[in-house]
């Protein structure tokens, strides 16, 4: 299920969650014309933020995507603390909550490479284009090749626009 960004992002921002939008939605923010069916969020692993994410998402019934129904999966701070990267389906759509990305980089590592975006009445952080390309390349997945090619073209086009 595609993410309901108009609801999800304001819920997280108003709860005070610390996260950076990465992946396909970040690519969209940079001008990508590709569709994406989930939202990837790199979140801070601080105790406070884990509690905020647990409280903010719990009412939207997070469940492990692709997991068979009926598993004893509870969405709480303890679960987030014990795990790292979660692929969730929620009533707000599919959300990938990532504690780190391919090269092992975390929220605090990539924070200096993010910028603020204003949309849906709130401000949140999005990964900058060169870093987005770098982490996609670091992931080294064949399925990302077209996305990397498009992002590189976007970088060229935005640089042309700046000149």
């Amino acid at each position, binding site marked *: *299920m*595609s*993410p*309901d*960004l*108009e609801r999800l992002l304001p819920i997280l921002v108003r709860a005070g969650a610390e996260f950076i939008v990465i992946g396909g*939605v970040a690519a*969209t*923010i*940079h*001008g*990508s*014309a590709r*569709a994406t*069916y989930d939202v990837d969020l790199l979140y801070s692993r601080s105790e406070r933020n884990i509690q905020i994410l647990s409280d903010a998402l719990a009412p939207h019934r997070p469940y492990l995507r692709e997991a068979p129904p009926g598993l004893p999966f509870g969405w709480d701070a303890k679960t987030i603390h014990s795990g790292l990267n979660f692929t969730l389906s929620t009533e707000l759509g599919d959300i990938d909550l990532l504690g780190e990305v391919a090269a092992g980089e975390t929220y605090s590592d990539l924070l200096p490479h993010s910028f603020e*975006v*204003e*949309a*849906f009445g709130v401000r949140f952080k*999005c990964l900058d284009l060169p870093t987005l390309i770098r982490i996609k*390349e670091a992931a*080294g997945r064949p399925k990302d*090749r*077209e996305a*990397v*090619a*498009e992002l*590189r*073209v*976007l970088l060229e*086009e*935005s640089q042309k*626009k700046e000149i």
Partner: protein
Amino acid sequence: MPLVLASAVDAIHAWLHVARCDMLAAMKATAAEEVIVRDLMHDIDRSLLRENLKLTPEQRLVKFASFMRFVGELRRAGENVRRNAKTQTL
């Protein structure tokens, strides 16, 4: 050269050879990946991207959200068609 020292030198040479081969293989893979991505860049429709770049980030997100709603509608319509076809077959 004493025998022990000679075999240690051989072992180091063997290890260096393996490390060099691993490094060359990694460089070859990276270079091949680069060629693939460069090729794919030729097929990207720049006009779509230029249109998107005229919008603000917020406008891009709103456009994306509206497109995804449209995709959702199409998906639901497809599911209905398949469900109806199944019902008629039964």
